């Protein structure tokens, strides 16, 4: 995924907060996924801001390391391929 992408959660996926982040369950394929807490601001963004804007905001608030985004984009790409999130 790219900094400029906007993403939203698949309609058939239910997300439940847990102490490590969240559990995501897809009613489409009955798969359970673990979502690390570092991904939550992106997964829950509902497409309102780009991934880069969300990351810049988190870095500005000291909630994300400046060099962390490339790794998170790779993980988000994995979630996109599994159908958990979609790029708008």
């Amino acid at each position, binding site marked *: 995924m790219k900094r400029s992408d906007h993403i939203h959660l698949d309609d058939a996926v239910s997300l439940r907060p847990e102490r490590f982040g969240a559990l995501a*369950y897809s009613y489409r394929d009955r798969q359970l996924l673990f979502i690390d807490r570092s991904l939550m601001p992106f997964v829950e963004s509902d497409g309102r801001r780009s991934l880069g804007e969300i990351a810049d905001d988190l870095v500005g608030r000291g909630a994300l390391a400046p060099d962390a985004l490339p790794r998170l984009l790779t993980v988000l790409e994995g979630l996109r391929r599994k159908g958990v999130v979609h790029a708008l």
Partner: protein
Amino acid sequence: MHYDLLRQGLEAPICLTWEMTYACNLRCVHCLSSSGKRAPDELATEEAKHLLDAWAGMRVFYINVGGGEPMTRPDFFELVEYAIERRIGVKFSTNGTLLDGAAARWIATTDYLDVQISLDGVSAQVNDPIRGSGSFSRARHAMELLAAEGFPFKVNHVVTRQSFDGLDSLHALVTGMGGQLRVTRLRPSGRGRDVWNALKLTADQNRALYSWLRAHTDVLTGDSFFHLSALGSPLDGLNMCGAGRIVCCVDPRGDVYACPFVLAPEFRAGNIRNEPFEAIWSESPLFRRMRGWEVGGQCRSCGAYDRCHGGCMAVKHFTGVSLDDPDPECVFGAQSRPRGMALPVLH
């Protein structure tokens, strides 16, 4: 990684088993809940809906509905629809005897619904001694009704010493009808206690089953053979006992148990008529204890511990061994466990 995340419990169950009723029109010899007659104090419709509201509020992803035979409840369809309207997925297990054409059509047009037909052998000769005379043909008829609707049903098969040789044929039968096979472990729970020694797999069959499951990745197991993962690469699933941590069971009277295989007073965490389900899940002393417990004893020095985590608590309990002992069906037997690093027991 998942084991460490899940062992200490979740904010809510991933799924839970709801035994809707003890009423059943069959008398399977291995029934986990010793079902037959309806209990006089089973949850009323409004109580059941209140429970579903609680689960929806906790965002329980899905429920496994069983019994007894859940379709004997007059409000069965009403309660399933109520759950689905609240975005709780429903997987219901049925012996298929009450499933007619109208029910099959309703099932096929309902989202978030999975159906498991119980079948414990590939022929009446194997199935009926366990589930009752005529049960094979009635289950088969239910499968045909669902197949005719194009619904991807599942067949749940408790594999036994007698049925094991028919696994390939059963797999072919089910997939040939557009279904999916689910194979689960016999437990010595309920009436299963009486037939455990006669029906449980032999050690050789358990080893062969592990290889068979590894070769048939389309076959579901409900994570029930994690004790066999000690033989090599882990089987699909979480490979851990989720009792009181990620799953639990509510019986027809509202009693909450750690899992559907331990319907025993020692594993009863509370009753939803006395306190809210949410409080039982998060605060019950039993569940709190279970979330701080790991199998100890000789399992902790076994090289396969990371794969099987000591096996099934229910099988240990109902065969009278300590929960810190190895699973009675441990693939290594008593003498030949692979040596590994001794790990500290957490309390």
